[in-house]
């Protein structure tokens, strides 16, 4: 097992080098550079081209491409992620400010979608053809079809404007920053992001559970006279959950993508909002760092998926 994990992690390194190069290349290709955005158009007329060049030199923008790539990579390895081009704040500090918010949101959404999705999917499979199954199936189809932000907006209209139960957005009221005091802010974005993913998990776990219930070993278990709940939960569910675990792992990119949109809807000050702001103002160090970080998360989660699969399904060999 340890060997398996180490090998997986080692295989990650060349991939990360390639991806970091691609990200750097991509950002390089963006039109304009930081200097264009640092100086307001009115001020630009008073600044001489020589001063602009000096500023570019100072920021290291005039070095050859490949030199800057290696400087960037070396800096990252030393834990220096660069500085925001507009405000000069270290990117690592910006990430440290926003990452907890995003983690809070995504972990809550992941919990909601995993628990609710697999539970409803299994119920749906066990009661196949019942009213509950049909209602859930239709709800799941609509859940996949509705744009996430639209769902968020509808929830704002219902729960904030009409019922006035929850705050419209933001993350906390100043002075009330304990976790349970912030909870009312978290509920809506987490539920919206969670439910948006629930539909997929539910559909998948229903199909997987149905598939597993048709297998021969279920018939064997039944003919042994085991209790029905035992057959379903112990023999059926365990096998059915393997593909679901895989699905949840592979949904992580969608979760991150969803968080970008949902953070915008609810003014949730996380990494997603930081990213959108950075893209709009071409703040390259921030864009690079977030892109790199999100890829890292995806790759690590795919390793986790492999491990969970191996634990759940004894037929999977680790070699």
């Amino acid at each position: 097992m340890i060997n398996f994990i180490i090998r997986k992690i080692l295989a990650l390194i060349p991939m990360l080098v390639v991806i970091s190069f691609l990200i750097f290349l991509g950002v390089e290709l963006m039109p304009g550079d930081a200097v264009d955005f640092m100086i307001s158009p009115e001020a630009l007329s008073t600044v001489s081209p020589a001063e602009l060049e000096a500023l570019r030199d100072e920021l290291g923008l005039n070095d050859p491409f490949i030199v800057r790539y290696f400087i960037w990579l070396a800096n990252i390895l030393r834990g220096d992620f660069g500085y925001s081009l507009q405000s000069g704040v270290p990117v690592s500090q910006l990430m440290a400010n926003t990452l907890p918010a995003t983690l809070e949101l995504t972990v809550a959404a992941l919990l909601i979608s995993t628990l609710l999705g697999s539970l409803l999917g299994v119920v749906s499979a066990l009661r196949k053809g019942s009213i509950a199954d049909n209602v859930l199936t239709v709800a799941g189809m609509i859940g996949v079809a509705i744009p996430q932000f639209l769902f968020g907006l509808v929830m704002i209209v219902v729960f904030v404007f009409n019922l006035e139960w929850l705050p419209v957005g933001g993350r906390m009221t100043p002075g009330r920053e304990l976790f349970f005091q912030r909870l009312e802010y978290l509920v809506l974005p987490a539920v919206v992001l969670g439910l948006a993913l629930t539909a997929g998990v539910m559909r998948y776990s229903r199909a997987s559970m149905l598939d597993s219930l048709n297998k021969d070993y279920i018939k064997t278990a039944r003919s042994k006279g085991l209790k029905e709940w035992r057959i379903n939960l112990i023999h059926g569910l365990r096998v059915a959950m393997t593909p679901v675990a895989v699905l949840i792992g592979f949904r992580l990119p969608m979760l991150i993508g969803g968080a970008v949109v949902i953070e915008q809807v609810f003014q949730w000050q996380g990494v997603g909002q930081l990213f959108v702001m950075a893209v709009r103002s071409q703040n390259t160090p921030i864009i690079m760092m977030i892109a790199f970080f999100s890829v890292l998360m995806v790759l690590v989660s795919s390793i986790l998926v492999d491990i969970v699969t191996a634990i759940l399904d004894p037929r999977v060999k680790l070699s």
Partner: protein
Amino acid sequence: MGTRALQKKMDQILYREQHGLLKSSNKSRALRKILANKLAIIGLVLFVAITILCVFAPLFTPYQPNSIDLRNRLAPPTFGHLLGTDQIGRDIWTRILFGGRISIFVGLGSALGAALIGVSLGTYAGYRGGLLDATVMKISEIMMSFPQIILVSILVTIVGQNLWNLMYIFILTGWSSMYRMARSQMLSIREQEYIQALRAFGISKAIIAFKHMLPNAIGPIFVNITLSTAMFILQEAALSFLGLGVPLDQPTWGNILNVAQDLTILRESWWVWLPVGVAITVFVLAINFIGDGLRDAADPTLIG
């Protein structure tokens, strides 16, 4: 059905099989299964209806999508303006119809483009294997490790915001899942005996792959195209919401929804954002119904 009737039916099937007549009934089996699938039919009707409304938009509305009427700002629905007007007095119903043209075009066009690249690469590389396959596989792995919206946002800023660029980006980021699907189909078809026979005849690899293998994988490909269309339409909407999609002067479903970021409009003028939201949802739902129907029809393991 009595035993004799059953036997008679079996005899008929046997007869048709022996005389090579079964093929025609086999062909209609997929069609029959789709027609028997109520949801797929509902989806198809909705899809066709919305597409016709959008394509022939000028026939269904007297207004232009971008004509501004500042005396009629944020007017609620009336007979003159079926779905009211937006904050600068443009007719919402007209904008939804014209916006649908672009949104559907982007969704369908990107899905077809991605399928063209992904399927041709997947078919050929999947059959040939070797270095080509390994390289393309690695590239697709790298593409897929980016969260889609992050990759798309970076690309949008590189090439600039316009309609065609958005489609190119969708194709560039979307082909890899098509490639993987086509490739996995090819890998299983490759092992079948008729392929060995073709190879023994000395037929070229490209002809085997595209003429003799691809048609057997066409079912899942169509399913994938429909589902990708839905995905791209949702993505266009999300990007426009973030201000990174099609430029705001062109009406698209996402751009019309964009104004709902304004909390006053969200609270007080439901007709500006709700109908277009419903339009997107219903259209995507319709495509998903069709996709599900196609999948059931193409999959011989599901009997019914």
